[in-house]
């Protein structure tokens, strides 16, 4: 028998065996149903979330524009809300979205946290995993693959069929490849609903087509790694139950244990200050620079001297502009520079933590896949940080714009309770930011993950070649 005849024969034989196993067929159908439910439920959920955030955004935008005549500094404190919209691919993998607030309150002199995360307002149920296609493909499908494939070679060995086939002249490599092909086909079938959903998204939203296709490729590669691992373990252990045990142990360690233990390791290694400590640290730095309320403060005395010189006058009262507005603008410039510095430092620490978790992807393909999946779905730490940084930039811009009105529109010599016309509020630009470029996201998160999953696959194939040569040569 030639390879071209033997290989399909092995694969078809394996399929036939799987079809005879009613438990396997039932589990497969259930998994397909679950993937479908996950796609529908999470797609609908993302739709609801986005509609809600858009509704909130338009409400607050309207509230902002409809403010009465006010002193601009009142408006600085009135502040503005921005809401983070979700990428069309977020339905595939919610990522960090349930764990980060999506609501940012932007006001003068202060940097607020993103509040009201789903997880912080929900029962403990959410913490095992949410019903997303990503969860099903990352955690549950590998387990099913293990169940379908653990006996693929070992059971035939137990029954003595394996030796028989080798004696009949089927090469070990052909046999293994046939089994691989059979189980790879099943794995792709299990992933099919999710893959079809990704293709559909790519067609409907061409803007994220590249991300969707990369996601598809990544998940296919991941499932393939599990298939190859399962068949190889089955081929290298004497009994099917040993293979099952080893594979389930592998699943526990790589899909459950490492992803959960690594964050603790990372948090312990890096150590980040809490929000209150950061707040105090910023406050201390500010106090060291100067206090605009203190008439003898050297920094602000110098600032006043500079301002007077700039306008060519000798007294604050003679300035053609509103001096308290200038003070506000200068204060905002100083606080914002510090906010920015602390924010970036904290983001660097968080990235360092995430890097420690990612380092375990060498042992756990799930960690590699999750990194790629959340990055491409626009639901990773980077995309959240992007929202925060863009929000902060927007905050600074509109607060300084209001301070500009304070300087130029409010009477310089007033008592401080003047109001300026409300048309100024409508002129404020709306918050918006462009999503990250695919090339950047891919270079940072997807290509490294692909490289890792690819290396896993190559390594497994290399081991497979070795196992195939020794298949039933040394009788156990």
């Amino acid at each position, binding site marked *: 028998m030639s390879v071209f005849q033997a290989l399909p024969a092995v694969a078809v034989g394996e399929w036939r065996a799987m079809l005879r196993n009613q438990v396997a067929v039932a589990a497969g159908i259930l998994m397909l149903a679950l993937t479908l439910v996950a796609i529908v439920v999470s797609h609908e959920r993302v739709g609801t979330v986005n509609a809600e955030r858009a509704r909130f955004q338009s409400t607050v935008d309207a509230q902002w524009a409809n403010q009465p005549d*006010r002193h601009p500094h009142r408006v600085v404190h009135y502040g503005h809300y921005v809401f983070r919209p979700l990428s069309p691919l977020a339905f595939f993998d919610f990522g960090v979205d349930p764990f980060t607030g999506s609501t940012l309150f932007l006001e003068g002199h202060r940097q607020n946290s993103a509040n009201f995360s789903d997880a912080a*307002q929900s029962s403990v149920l959410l913490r095992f995993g949410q019903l997303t296609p990503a969860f099903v493909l990352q955690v549950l499908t590998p387990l099913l693959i293990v169940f379908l494939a653990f006996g693929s070679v070992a059971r035939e060995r137990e029954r003595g069929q394996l030796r028989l086939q080798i004696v009949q002249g089927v090469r070990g490599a052909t046999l293994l490849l046939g089994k691989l092909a059979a189980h790879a086909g099943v794995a792709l079938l299990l992933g099919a609903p999710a893959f079809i959903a990704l293709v559909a998204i790519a067609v409907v939203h061409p803007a994220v087509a590249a991300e969707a296709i990369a996601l598809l490729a990544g998940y296919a590669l991941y499932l393939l790694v599990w298939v190859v691992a399962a068949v190889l373990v089955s081929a290298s252990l004497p009994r099917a139950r040993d293979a099952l045990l080893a594979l389930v142990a592998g699943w526990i360690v790589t899909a459950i244990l490492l992803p959960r233990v690594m964050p603790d390791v990372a948090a312990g290694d890096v150590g980040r200050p809490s929000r209150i400590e950061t707040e105090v640290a910023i406050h201390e730095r500010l106090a060291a620079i100067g206090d605009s309320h203190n008439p003898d403060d050297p920094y602000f005395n110098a600032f006043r001297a500079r301002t007077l010189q700039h306008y060519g006058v000798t007294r604050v009262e003679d300035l053609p502009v509103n001096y308290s507005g200038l003070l506000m603008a200068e204060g905002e410039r100083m606080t914002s520079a510090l906010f920015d510095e602390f924010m970036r430092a904290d983001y660097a620490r968080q990235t360092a933590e995430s890097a420690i978790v990612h380092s375990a992807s060498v042992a756990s393909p799930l960690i590699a896949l999750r990194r790629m999946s959340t990055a491409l779905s626009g639901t990773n730490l980077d995309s959240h940080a992007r929202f925060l940084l863009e929000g902060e930039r927007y905050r600074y811009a509109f607060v300084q714009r209001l301070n500009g009105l304070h300087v130029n529109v409010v009477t310089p010599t007033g008592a401080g309770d003047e109001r300026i016309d409300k048309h100024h509020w409508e002129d404020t630009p709306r918050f918006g930011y462009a999503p990250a470029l695919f090339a950047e996201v891919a270079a940072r998160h997807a290509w490294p993950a692909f490289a890792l999953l690819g290396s896993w696959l190559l390594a497994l194939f290399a081991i497979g070649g070795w196992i195939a040569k020794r298949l039933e040569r040394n009788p156990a």
Partner: protein
Amino acid sequence: MKTYFLELRQIAHSRLAVGAVVLLALLSALSVWTGLHAVNQQRATLERIAASHAHDHAAILATQLRAVSKTGSAEAGAVGYYLPHLTVNPPSPLAFAAIGGRDLQPSALRVRILGLQSQLYESESINPELAMPGRFDFAFVLVYLTPLFVIALMHDLVSSEREAGRLRLLASLPKGAADTWRRRVGLRYGLLWLAALLPLAVGAFIAGAGVTGFGQIALVATLYLAFWFGLAAWVAARARTSAGSAAILLASLVGLTMILPTLADAGIARLSPVSKGVELALAQRQAVHSAWDVPKMETFEKFFRTHPEWKDTAPVTGRFHWKWYYAMHQAGDDAVAPSVAQYRASMMAREDWTARAGLLLASVNVQVLLHRLADTDLASQLAYHDRIGAYHTQLRQFFYPYLFEERPFTPSDAAKLPVYDGSAMKGTLATGQLLALAVLALLLLAAGLRTLRTVR
């Protein structure tokens, strides 16, 4: 006794069984260790926060009291505006076993005497990528991993005897097979119980949770194991082959611990959406800020409705007065009281629905029970909010006489500021939930053992 010893030797001969028991003990120990580590980190963070806050508090107070040198007193309104007050929510002694929401929720919050509702929901700056996978704590090992070990030890209980041809022999023994099965199930149960709970006992001792604390968790764990042993015995008695039995049990595990709970979570999210918090925040902002644009008397009228004791103080005539400013903030809080009630009700609804799901799903029930015991659930967070609210009221009432009677604020007054009671709360045992778990577990165990008797 001798038969038990023989059975134990039989188990000891099985590599799978020994490996399973040792592995479970290791995983349980690892979870206890990471739990203790996480809780210690939280305590250390609270200490750092307390130190950093004390420093900040002293500096702000000194700045505010500097005016004393000139006028003999500081402005209470300004002190109240700038001075933050620390509240903390330290972990309970059992928190290490079920960390729950503690890694997401802020365990310390600073409040000023401004409107509470704009300060209460500040979130901690967590790394969301670390929070995403969930914690590896004892609750996780118990709920999701222990059943796997039950399956490993139980799936071939009957079929291995059948496959070895000893089943008929067993059934024909004078004392009958029933005793043998019960003994074997009991022995496996005992081994896994010890493997899972010994590390927990050590952890509870280290954490100072006491015998009661450990006993309560152990009770929940005992019932949960009974649930799985009952199910496993039933399946093992019915299934023809070991592989079939293992597959059915694993399907039950995935279904009961992963698929149904995530479906329940998706359902709960639909029934009770989480957007009420945002609505509350938006309403609060409108309520406070529109007060700047209405006559001061309107604001005072609202404030006096809830604080009539200050009704007869002098009216505000000028452009600004601190007492008007704080009355405005309080009136803002009062205005959103219905939204606050709604928000809390929506969160409690999610908690209630989870508990209801737990009446049917043992895995959910155990999580609800353990997190309530460890005081790390949503209810704990709401209780912390209540304590912050009570402290905020205490602070406001401390400041009001200075504001409304225009009393000077001196350094000796600052020493009298109310202090937050930062002792750890204890969780409670939800007896109704426990009863539901007990009924479910014992019924299933009885059914499993009964079915084993009928094995041929």
